[in-house]
């Protein structure tokens, strides 16, 4: 029952390989149904396009395959996603653009689409750099993946410790303590509309950073 709680069951992959002083960092979305031969040809093609030496390829392969294997190891297992609304955060820098945002995401909606969200966000905020969109989508997916995998381990613990209910609640709340209490919002006194004083918390922030700062930040990283 485990799957990404999005419409398309895609895995976020992050690659960070360093060979002979050259560093390759990348993040993208992969379809786990693609055959493994695709991974190899993708790694080779990327290395060729970026003019990286061939020594990069095995490490890239290892990294990607490892993450996919981890994803697949979750796949047969039970996952319990109740209707929970979780806040997700975006805090990333892509080339010259900084994006910081926070929003509520319905985990229980198995039809959600991080890609569409990223596209709309970029369009609405007039982000010109096309590389920002994929980064946002990957970031959202990673957070969702995290939540999903945590719920799997929570279920496992729950099964193991069936007789002891208290720890079950504890582990659940540990994973999901961020979940928003729906009742508070939609109860008799609450309203669906966000209070004005909380608007600033949920407004996206986009900064375009000049090149010098980018160089500085890169070196510190």
């Amino acid at each position, binding site marked *: 029952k485990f799957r990404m709680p999005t*419409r*398309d069951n*895609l895995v976020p992959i992050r690659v960070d390989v360093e060979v002979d002083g050259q560093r390759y960092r990348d993040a*993208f*979305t*992969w*379809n786990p149904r*693609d055959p493994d031969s*695709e991974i190899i040809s*993708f790694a080779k*093609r*990327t290395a*060729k*396009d*970026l003019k990286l030496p061939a020594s990069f390829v095995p490490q890239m392969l290892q990294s990607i395959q490892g993450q996919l294997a981890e994803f697949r190891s979750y796949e047969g297992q039970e996952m319990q996603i109740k209707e929970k609304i979780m806040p997700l955060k975006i805090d990333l820098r892509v080339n010259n653009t900084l994006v910081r945002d926070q929003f509520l995401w319905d985990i229980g909606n198995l039809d959600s*689409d991080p*890609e*569409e969200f*990223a*596209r709309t966000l*970029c369009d609405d905020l007039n982000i010109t750099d*096309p*590389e920002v*969109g*994929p980064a*946002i*989508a990957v970031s959202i997916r990673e957070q969702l993946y995290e939540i999903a995998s945590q719920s799997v381990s929570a279920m496992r613990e729950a099964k193991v410790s069936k007789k002891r209910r208290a720890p079950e609640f504890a582990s659940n709340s540990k994973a999901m303590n961020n979940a928003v209490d729906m009742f508070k919002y939609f109860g008799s006194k609450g309203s669906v509309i966000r209070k004005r004083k909380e608007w600033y918390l949920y407004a996206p922030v986009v900064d375009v950073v000049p090149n010098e700062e980018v160089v500085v930040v890169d070196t510190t990283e």
Partner: protein
Amino acid sequence: MATPPAATATNSAPTPPKPPYKAPPFSQPPSTAGAGKTETPAASTSTAAAAVVAAVAATGAAAEEPSYIITVPSYSAWFSYDSVSDTERRLMPEFFQGEAAAASGSRGPEAYKYYRDTLVKRFRVRPERRLTLTEARRGLIGDIGSVRRVFDFLEEWGLINYGVSLPGVKQGRDKREEPVAPQSSLPAGVSAPKKLCIGCRTVCGQAYFTCEKADITICCRCYVRANYRPGLTPADFKKVETSEDAKSDWTDKETLHLLEAVMQYGEDWKKISEHVGSRSEKDCIARLLRLPFGEQFMGPKEDKMQFETDDDITDESRAEISKRVRLTPLADASNPIMAQVAFLSAIVGSDVATAAAQAAISAQSQVDETNDSPADSSIGSPKEEESCYTNGFSANDLLKEASANARVQLEKERKDIEQSLSDIVDVQMKEIQAKICRFEQKELLMEKERQQLHYLQKLLFADQLAVVQHQCRPHAVTAENEADENPKPVLTS
């Protein structure tokens, strides 16, 4: 080369579905034609005009104006920004069939269109540069597998990276093996391979002549006019084609492909250029001619002359080819001069060549008494001119023959077209008549129904009257009412 504005118009006409491309303004003399090169849609546009325009465009692109030609192979003419064509639906079923058909977002037709439009737009911003998958997918929100498939599809169909190749990279089709330097110098083609003629100080167009003795480069016109210093003979000069050498040398593999294609496809230059890979039709033809036995293949070519009058250079090159075929058996002894004449007539266009030949004939009759030696490689200029005349005469003859041939074929084509048009009209008329028949039948049926309804209306009215009357006499026999009831069920059934 005489009608560049007309050529642009025709160039834009066959390529309507590419809105982002604009025909560049003509600000440079056509003599720069030799430098730039693009591959043209094989359908109908003039290679020369496109080459000229592309040369302008190359410089235009260097000046950072968004005016350039984007060429798309004719087998991809279905592409349009506004819609997804059936070809795409058929070849990329993952986006269009099954559960994906109704999906939106990352799976369905919208996703495909988004990927495709973004990729094509990105490529067209810098059409000389190869768009790599890695670069492209970094700007695309979606999963890598789908993006890669769309990218490969577009690349295969020439909507992306058409005419561009990464140096030393083996592409999906192993047919291309271009050396690095000439390709990369293509977009800036204006600079390096320019030859200035020593005689007239103009840029040499498509070909020029080099002299080894004196290390001189002169253009075609100067060669003909013998505009070089005395002491040099025309035999000392060797003809060099700028277009051929500047771009790239034909590798053995390409030549092999070319030969295979010729064997397989015969005269279909479109297919041949596809088979060879990144060579335009003109290049293939030119290359074939340069091969030692090339003329054998060109034999039957004379029968199929094209009639596109706006197609100067293609016409000329083909005319040149047919002329060469005819001329070479005639005058083997005076090859350089034959080539010269053929070359000349190619440069100036068939009309001018005919006129020149006519003048030559009339002049020749005057000179005839003094000199009767035919084409002979000679040193002095009068003899040279004369052999020009002789050859001009035969050239004129052949031209006439060729044009008569062309006219006959034109007539045939016209008749065919008319015939098929009238057939089409007949079929349409039959269709319309059948429709009319059907409509008439339907009308009849409608009439009948209407009459029936009228009749029913009348009956109903009569019954209503009867009921009302009976109601007025309430003490009347109830049996009568019952009798009235009977007709009603009959009516309603």
